[in-house]
């Protein structure tokens, strides 16, 4: 029963428990085990508990002492001796703040969590409608009073989300254009249909691939930035400050971003068209020995201008989706640091999904209209 922290001495009519060493945080669990053993043994005599050899006592040591003092006290008299004045003061302090009430637990059950997520998804859905409604009104009012339009801001955002994305968009669309012709070249060569590579690449890039790639890159690059910027402004209460000063955040934060992206996204798509076709021309030249002049001649012949326009027209729609989702997610940020990360992730995932869904919708409608 003896350890470096406790020593037991039995006498005829009493037991002396001597405490020694450092009764601090780092040793408490060892001491607790020894004390429990002593308690389990069942002492039938009067206990004298001596603290004169304790080197250091912190609040956890005193708490442990109190809990075992109470346990021993139930069966027999316990006398505490040898404590210093400082230890007694700490004892009184801790006794004063001892409470029976326990800390409420915040762990929720499975069904509760499921229900909560359903309700909050529904809530989010309604909030998005609310947001869209505001956006629509703000949009019309914006153009009814044109002096609200802040050209400088719009140009700033065009540079941030448009011009500075040129390099990454050039790189991705060049690679995609190249891969498309590279892969199909082998199959087409089997049928001797080499020249059709131009039709394939030209139409698929201008109509589908360039708009999609551009929108996905922009959603990852700028959509996340919108969420993080607006979310941070919400945490620091800048948005509340703007509101109280009469600066509508829809005019000052969201619409400039939206107008800017609605202008710059089609331009980026146009740029991606050129670079993508360049990539496929390059691959066709390497793989099928189609000269650049041949490729361009054929392109002029087969690429109907409508494919190009369809690709460009998708731009503003994708831009609206990306900005709306990015800004909406930003406004959903609450006071804690985790939510900014959560909302940014959700913003990118949502906007990529909705861009693709919107593209599918375009395909269906255009097929019905026979374009």
């Amino acid at each position, binding site marked *: 029963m003896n350890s470096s922290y406790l020593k037991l001495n039995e006498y005829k009519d009493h037991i002396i428990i001597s405490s020694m060493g450092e009764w601090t*945080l780092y040793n408490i*669990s060892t001491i607790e085990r020894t004390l429990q053993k002593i308690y389990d043994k069942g002492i039938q005599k009067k206990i004298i508990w001596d603290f004169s050899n304790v080197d250091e006592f912190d609040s*956890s040591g005193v708490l442990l002492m109190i809990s075992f003092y109470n346990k021993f006290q139930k069966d027999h008299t316990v006398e505490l001796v040898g404590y210093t004045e*400082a230890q007694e*003061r700490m004892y009184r*302090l801790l006794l004063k703040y001892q*409470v029976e009430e326990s800390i409420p637990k915040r762990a929720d059950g499975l069904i509760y969590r499921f229900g909560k997520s359903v309700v909050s998804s529904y809530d989010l859905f309604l909030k998005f409608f609310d947001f869209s409604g505001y956006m629509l009104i703000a949009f019309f009012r914006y153009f009814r009073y044109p002096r609200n339009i802040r050209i400088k801001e719009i140009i700033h955002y065009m540079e941030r989300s448009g011009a500075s994305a040129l390099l990454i968009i050039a790189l991705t669309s060049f690679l995609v254009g190249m891969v498309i012709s590279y892969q199909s070249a082998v199959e087409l060569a089997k049928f001797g249909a080499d020249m059709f590579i131009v039709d394939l690449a030209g139409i698929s890039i201008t109509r589908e691939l360039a708009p999609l790639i551009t929108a996905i890159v922009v959603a990852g690059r700028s959509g996340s930035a919108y969420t993080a910027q607006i979310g941070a402004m919400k945490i620091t209460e800048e948005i509340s400050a703007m509101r109280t000063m009469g600066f509508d955040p829809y005019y000052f934060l969201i619409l400039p971003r939206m107008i800017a992206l609605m202008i710059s996204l089609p331009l980026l798509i146009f740029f991606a068209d050129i670079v993508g076709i360049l990539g496929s021309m390059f691959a066709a030249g390497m793989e099928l020995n189609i000269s650049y002049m041949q490729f361009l001649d054929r392109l002029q012949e087969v690429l109907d201008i409508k494919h190009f326009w369809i690709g460009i027209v998708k731009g503003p729609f994708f831009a609206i989706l990306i900005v709306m989702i990015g800004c909406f997610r930003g406004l959903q940020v609450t006071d804690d640091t985790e939510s900014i990360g959560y909302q940014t992730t959700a913003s990118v995932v949502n906007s990529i999904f909705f861009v693709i869904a919107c593209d599918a919708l375009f395909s269906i409608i255009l097929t019905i209209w026979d374009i």
Partner: protein
Amino acid sequence: MEMIKVRDVVTSFGSTVIHDGLNLTINQGEIYGILGESGSGKTLLLKEMIMLHKPTSGNITILGEDLTTIRYQDAQYLRRQWGILFQFGALFTSLTVAENVELQLKEYTNIDKKMREKIVKSKISMVGLPVRAGGLYPSELSGGMIKRAALARALAMDPKLLFLDEPTSGLDPIGARNFDTLIVELKELLGITVVMITHDLDSIYSIIDRFSVLADKHVVAEGSLSSVLESDHPFVERFFKNDYAKKRLNRSELSV
């Protein structure tokens, strides 16, 4: 015994010099205040003491360890012996108050769950929070409660040294005085040395044992209130020898 020694500390960012040879000494068991104009580098000095920022030159010694030459392991050990109350609490927002207080106990000791909860409960009620506040997240607390919860977290490991960055800022006058009383009580009962940055005249008059005044990149006065008041530095004149400060001083003398 000296807990903290600051010797010839110089801090500069490029050509901007913030501290130009600071010297001060903090003794065991005292409540020590650091006072100064905004921009005089009080918070920076505190950051240098708690190893968040390295001074450009000079030495800081805490609990016998020289911070300029301290080894990683010793630094980690030293960090467990102090508690810090940041100006805005800096509670971890993803954890409840109880989890915030419990965190270090869980990481650094092998105390079992039941005992940990006992310790956490005693710390939470010690700083004057109801125990049920332990289940709340920081975003659900008021400003005063955040300060108290952050103090409970700072006290979790029974520190020998407590750093407080403007502990009463943002509290109402009554809350601020209660907080002062709490600090004195903790200092006396737990034998903690307290270092605090403060602008609060009432705190300076009522609870601080000694303090230093930072101005013009130097410590322009150090000592008890009466010895600082003897200084004729313009900042001391401006801060203590105006009508408002004099009125306050008279009132706190009356109440003592």
